């Protein structure tokens, strides 16, 4: 894909976000789960962070020497899913990542194809909502390259991720198009280990760890989040966690 087209599509996606935000009042400054009394605080935080991050700064990156000796692996560490175990046994050679929804060119990406796209390596801190933090190096492809390759349509506003272990979550274009938002296939110089989400783990560095989904199975581009799954934007919402986790 040529560079000018790439840039035009990025701009189109950003214009779409701005346009729909303008159409619906301040909706661009409200997270999808806004509603309850507690949601008022969440909405204020989300809106103020959007102002603070308006120039799209990067989360801190470290030297390799800062990589943690033992990066914790929590939640699913070995999916019981039969299909997953079959793909794993084959070294994920048959694994494909579908990119569907509001795209001009639906994709089914192999690991090889992801590796052939422009790579990005970042040593970042994982900030778990529980309170712990650890540093690791992640190598992968910035999500925006994948979205460009799929030719996302101007009306696209959210990118939804479905995972092997049943987790699902979403990002709006503000975070989805950020260069540090990466589909990582490498960790600390090797492949992403199974316990950390092989073959692909999402990295969302400006939000808490639970947004960085493991075992990503498919990517869906959409304009409305309320029609996906239970309509809250993320699986964790029903357990009381906020969709926006830059906190």
């Amino acid at each position, binding site marked *: 894909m040529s560079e000018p087209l790439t840039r035009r599509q990025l701009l189109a996606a950003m214009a779409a976000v701005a346009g729909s935000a303008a159409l619906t009042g301040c909706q661009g400054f409200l997270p999808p789960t806004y509603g309850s009394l*507690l949601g008022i605080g969440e909405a204020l935080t989300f809106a103020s962070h959007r102002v603070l991050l308006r120039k799209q700064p990067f989360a801190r990156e470290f030297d390799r020497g800062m990589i943690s000796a033992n990066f914790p692996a929590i939640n699913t560490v070995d999916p019981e899913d039969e299909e997953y175990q079959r793909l794993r046994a084959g070294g994920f050679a048959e694994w494909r990542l579908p990119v569907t929804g509001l795209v001009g060119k639906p994709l089914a990406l192999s690991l090889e194809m992801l590796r052939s796209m422009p790579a990005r390596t970042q040593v970042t801190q994982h900030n778990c909502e529980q*309170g712990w933090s650890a540093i690791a190096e992640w190598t992968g492809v910035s999500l925006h390259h994948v979205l460009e390759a799929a030719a996302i349509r101007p009306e696209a506003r959210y990118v939804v991720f479905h995972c092997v272990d049943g987790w699902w979550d979403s990002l709006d274009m503000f975070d989805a198009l950020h260069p540090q938002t990466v589909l990582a296939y490498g960790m600390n110089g090797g492949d992403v280990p199974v316990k950390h989400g092989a073959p692909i783990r999402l990295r969302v560095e400006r939000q808490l760890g639970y947004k960085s989904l493991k075992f990503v199975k498919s990517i869906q581009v959409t304009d409305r989040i309320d029609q996906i799954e239970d309509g809250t934007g993320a699986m964790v919402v029903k357990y009381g966690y906020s969709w926006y986790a830059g906190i």
Partner: protein
Amino acid sequence: MPSSALEATGSQPDDRAASIPTERGHSRLVRITHTLNSVSFVALVVSGIAILIAHPRLYWGEDGYFGLPALFEFPIETNLSHTGWGRSLHFLAAWVFVINGVIYLVSGLVGRHFRRHLLPRREEFAKPSLVAEIRNHLTLRIPRGGAGPRYSLLQKTAYLFVIFILTPVMILSGLTMSPAVTAAYPELFTLFGGRQSARTVHFLTSAGLVLFLAVHLLMVTLSGFRRQVRAMTVGVRSADEEV
């Protein structure tokens, strides 16, 4: 500014205000902001504990996780089930706390509340009065004085320390735990020496504030709980002052 208007009615030259009880209770703005501050502070402590118990260990620097030596470990079970509502409540309360605090701060500067009531006067540092005050506090001989802003030196020092030291450190160390805020202001990490350091400072400062609250409530109780609480909420009518 309502506070200055109220204070102006009892206007006395500043140098006499210290010795002559002329103030007529807390200004309306102080009463409202104190009430909102109390409610949000309790919510912040409760939700803060809910978040803390999900990982009841404190570290220094950037790294902190099970398997790494902790600076301090709370002797409690890890409980992961309260961070959801805990964090939502913590941030709602923090917004109330901060907005309310900014209103208090600006009005306190503009309305001269800080200068009139919290800035220590030179004579308060005189050795005899200072020694007497410390002795009275240590022996819990607290005068059942008027319920208004006529504070002793120890009181002023405690209030100033809470308002201008502990609270800013509390807010800044809290912001340092946000991966979004620190993307915009990475200097925060330099200030506290890392994310886990900021988390530890956040806890220690909150412990300091809770300790202040305990002493504060003790003093309020010793100097007449009901009257003090009424004076800081609905306010004092002049008839009450006469009693």
